[in-house]
């Protein structure tokens, strides 16, 4: 073979990396890489639609990683919720790597979205994340890696929780195969703890897999809420700070017990109602009631002014 040009080198590198998923899925472009695999935009030639195809990275030949990818597909397939990306298909590439096909979501990750969004929009997006996580908990699945970069803001306002590769299925029977049970561990085969520092509950960071339950995800949600609150650059209101503090309490028993209860406090705060995490002072209560009923207060004030004006006018 004679000298190959730079363009040919680029093209051949792409050809090596691009998975061959058979005749049904035509892979077009790489969308991104993670620790476990790479995600590509592909076309489903049977249904004629764009999909996202996630395949094990070509350099990831560890059996544990392959197991995680397959498991992620299975977990996603059992979670049917608007906030969790739908899995369409799964299989093995011709070169033996596992892959799965899911809905293609176009949009921004939450950490990117937060740089330009208003705080109200961010909190409402956060509530949708809580809904998705709460649903997963109801199906006994704990995400274990909730971070802003694992939440996608779709271009039509969808909020999707991604990357369920290290999810734990709570209460899994000890009779399950060793590989699946090992996937429930918080550590990989070489002892590395899975999860993201700063968003990982202390019990997970310390490798105590048995202690990791839904409250570990509450910690992750609280850390996300803290991230979003800080992204505005403005001081965080005391009640919101109290919610974040409670959700990210080092002791799991001090946190909200469920994602729902965390979401309820955030929702109440947005609606100007009292919250569980914060005991407001009398002045704060009055201020809150005023903010919540500002229009009514102003109307009654206007009525009082009219009455006094009439009096003064009659006096003249």
């Amino acid at each position, binding site marked *: 073979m004679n000298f190959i040009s730079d363009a040919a080198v680029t093209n051949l590198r792409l050809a090596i990396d691009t998975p061959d998923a058979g005749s049904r899925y035509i892979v077009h472009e790489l969308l991104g890489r993670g620790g476990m695999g790479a995600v590509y935009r592909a076309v489903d030639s049977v249904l004629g639609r764009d999909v996202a195809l996630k395949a094990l990275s070509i350099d990831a030949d560890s059996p544990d990683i392959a197991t995680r990818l397959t498991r992620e597909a299975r977990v996603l397939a059992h979670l049917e919720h608007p906030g969790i990306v739908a899995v369409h298909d799964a299989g093995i590439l011709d070169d033996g790597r596992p892959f799965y096909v899911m809905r293609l979501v176009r949009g921004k990750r939450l950490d990117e979205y937060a740089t330009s969004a208003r705080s109200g929009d961010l909190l409402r997006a956060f509530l949708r994340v809580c809904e998705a996580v709460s649903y997963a908990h109801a199906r006994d699945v704990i995400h274990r890696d909730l971070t802003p970069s694992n939440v996608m803001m779709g271009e039509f306002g969808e909020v999707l929780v991604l990357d369920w590769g290290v999810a734990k299925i709570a209460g899994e029977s000890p009779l399950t195969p060793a590989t699946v049970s090992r996937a429930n561990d918080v550590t990989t085969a070489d002892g590395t703890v899975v999860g993201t520092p700063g968003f990982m509950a202390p019990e997970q960071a310390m490798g105590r897999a048995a202690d990791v339950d839904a409250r570990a995800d509450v910690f992750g949600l609280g850390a996300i809420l803290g991230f979003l609150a800080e992204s505005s650059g403005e001081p965080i209101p005391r009640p919101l700070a109290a919610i974040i503090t409670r959700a990210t309490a080092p002791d799991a028993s001090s946190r909200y017990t469920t994602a729902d209860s965390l979401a309820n406090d955030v929702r109440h705060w947005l609606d100007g109602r009292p919250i569980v995490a914060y005991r407001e002072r009398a002045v704060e209560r009055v201020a809150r009631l005023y903010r919540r009923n500002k*229009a009514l207060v102003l*109307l009654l004030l*206007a*009525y009082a002014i009219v009455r*006094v004006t*009439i009096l003064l006018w*009659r006096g003249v």
Partner: protein
Amino acid sequence: MNKPMLGLAAGGVLGVLDGFTALVSAPEVAPQLTTIVLGSMGKGLVAGFLIGWFAKKVNSLPLGIAFGLTMGALFALPFAMGTDPTTGQKYFWEILIPGSMVGLVVGYLTQRYGASVAARA
């Protein structure tokens, strides 16, 4: 509480208050205060119920406020056009304006608060 009932309650309460505050703009009517308050309460109850019923049918803050204002004015008008039998004075604007404003407030309240049928379903 559904919207008609909220309108009834708010209209009655604000009608009573409106009656008492007549003393602010016309202190000389103090001897007829009981009559004024009862009349104002009656207006408030009927107008409030109608405004609440409108809010149940039409979900629009501007329209609700406009309807409330109109109902308040319509119910206040007969009283505003009359003459006080004791003082012989007319209190047209002193009755019409506050009465209309009470209707406006009830219109706002019933649009903003109160359970609609859809919400209860």
